[in-house]
């Protein structure tokens, strides 16, 4: 499984026409999601891997075979790279049947065996019985399956998916996503998925890579990136809630604690080394790590990191109820948390309630770098990714 020779390795650099500064690796059996807002160079990276775009500078290798090495003037055409690519709008051959579309990619198989192999692939993507239909006679989801079968027909060493679920409705999308999840277990090759949907990446990907202006900002497990973005830029791109700025006032490594001053509060966070006392930092607390303690009773605090505010918004999210409170502090920032199950809403907070919440020190993530000014001004960026 971890044979290093079967990695896909990508290193790309260019300034024009689309800036790129990307380093990626994907193991066999792994699904890597490239996530970023439109124009972040996701598709261009995929095209570089497939040989459809030649970057100014770059190296791409797969299965130990070099496909691109600009330094040595090597740039294999797409025909010589064992890639399977599912295009965003599928790019099926409109004049050919589903079966013929797949046969088109079976050039390496002896002529007499192509039809049978095409049927096998169509069965694999659950299109048995529709082999003779042309793309125009198939639904969006069925077209996507033909595109997937065609991409697999070449016995690719890497499977590339360019926003494969963007052109189908929500219900079909769920089905196709689930099927991809099952299919990938049978394919022991690197899979690279391009998407602007963070949720999609979080559900499907083993690792995801956050891209911005062609640059790979952070690569890691979706859960890790969501909870611990590398810097405020990543935090903004993934639409992190509860992003604040503060100042480190004390480091207590022996207790595993970093102490922050924030809006007059003293907040204890899990220890973050490498940040000096007095340094301005950004920090976040995941909504799941904010605990609702109840109405503001004004009694002695039962625990640390207490924050007071007024409930300003209640939104059902799945089975949970997401609450937003406006903090008492002068700058009137908002804090989001989950107020338990919706059914319990009657006993939970109501709009306008004054409440107290506690921030779990383990859920606080400190980032060095510029304090986040104008996070809300960047709503556009995050919304395009959500």
């Amino acid at each position: 499984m971890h044979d290093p020779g079967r990695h896909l390795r990508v290193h790309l650099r260019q300034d024009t026409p689309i800036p790129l500064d990307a380093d990626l690796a994907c193991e066999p059996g792994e699904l890597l999601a490239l996530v970023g807002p439109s124009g972040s160079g996701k598709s261009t990276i995929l095209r570089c891997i497939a040989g459809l775009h030649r970057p100014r500078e770059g190296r791409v290798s797969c299965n130990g075979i070099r496909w691109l090495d600009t330094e040595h003037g090597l740039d294999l055409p797409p025909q010589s790279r064992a890639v399977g690519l599912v295009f965003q709008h599928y790019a099926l051959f409109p004049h050919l049947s589903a079966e013929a579309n797949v046969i088109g990619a079976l050039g390496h198989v002896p002529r007499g065996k192509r039809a049978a192999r095409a049927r096998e692939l169509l069965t694999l993507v659950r299109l048995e019985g529709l082999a003779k239909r042309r793309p125009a006679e198939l639904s969006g989801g069925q077209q996507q399956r033909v595109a997937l079968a065609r991409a697999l027909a070449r016995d690719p060493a890497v499977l590339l998916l360019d926003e494969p679920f963007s052109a189908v409705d929500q219900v079909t999308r769920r089905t196709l996503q689930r099927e991809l999840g099952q299919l990938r277990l049978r394919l022991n090759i690197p899979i690279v998925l391009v998407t602007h949907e963070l949720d999609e990446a979080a559900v499907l990907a083993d690792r995801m890579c956050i891209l911005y202006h062609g640059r790979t900002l952070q690569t890691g497990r979706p859960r890790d990136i969501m909870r611990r973005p590398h810097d405020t830029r990543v935090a903004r791109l993934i639409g992190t809630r509860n992003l604040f700025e503060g100042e480190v006032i004390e480091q207590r490594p022996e207790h595993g604690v970093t102490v922050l001053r924030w809006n007059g509060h003293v907040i204890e966070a899990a220890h973050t080394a490498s940040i000096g006392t007095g340094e301005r930092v950004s920090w976040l607390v995941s909504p799941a790590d904010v605990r609702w303690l109840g109405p503001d009773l004004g009694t002695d605090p039962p625990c640390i990191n207490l924050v007071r505010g007024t409930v300003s918004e209640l939104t059902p999210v799945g089975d949970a109820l997401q609450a937003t409170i406006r903090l008492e502090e002068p700058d009137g920032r908002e804090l989001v948390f989950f107020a338990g199950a919706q059914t319990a809403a009657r006993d939970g907070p109501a709009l306008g309630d004054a409440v107290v919440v506690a921030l779990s020190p383990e859920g606080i993530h400190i980032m060095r770098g510029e304090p986040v000014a104008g996070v809300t001004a960047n709503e556009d960026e995050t919304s395009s990714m959500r």
Partner: protein
Amino acid sequence: MDWSAFALSLRLAGWTTIVLLPIGLALARMLAWRRIRGKGFVEALIALPLVLPPTVLGYYLLVSFSHASPIGRAYESIVGHSLAFTFEGLVLASIIFNFPFAVLPMQRAFESIPPDTREAAWVSGMSQWRTFLEVELPLAWPGVLSALVLTFAHTMGEFGVVLMVGGSIPGETKTIALAIYDRAQAFDQSAAGAMSALLLIFSMIAIVTVYALAPRIGPWHA
């Protein structure tokens, strides 16, 4: 009815169409997909015969065929006679004059093929040649056929250039359009009328074919 003139016209139209097919395909594909410098200039040059008076084009061709021009001299030294007032000269003139009719419909047809359809073919392992035969041509054929029909029909009826370059020599350069003019000048109404009717029917079939093909050119919806 001048059947030899009609046969000559058919021969001229046939040669023009055959020669323009590969040239038109190459030019149309290049203009549709390649990013080339001075593309607008090339396109304007190809479309120029649409507005240029045929006699003007014929005049310049005649001048360049003459012994005084390097092209004319070069041809003469290789073949042994001048291009002017020969069937070969007519074919060459016809080819130049028909560039817009051959290239423009083909270019439109190739432009209507989404770029990712060709890329999908390459990524599927299909060579450039296989992509051309199995993907591009099947998608562009209505435009290509349109171009051929237009070129053929247009050559059948061409008058000005043919007269200037060919000089109406019976059996060599006297096409049916020239024969009609010739008969009308001689008040031979029945011959002029018969030949005109023939060309009319011919042109109508051609234009109906082109219009019938037109809806099939254009964006392919997958």
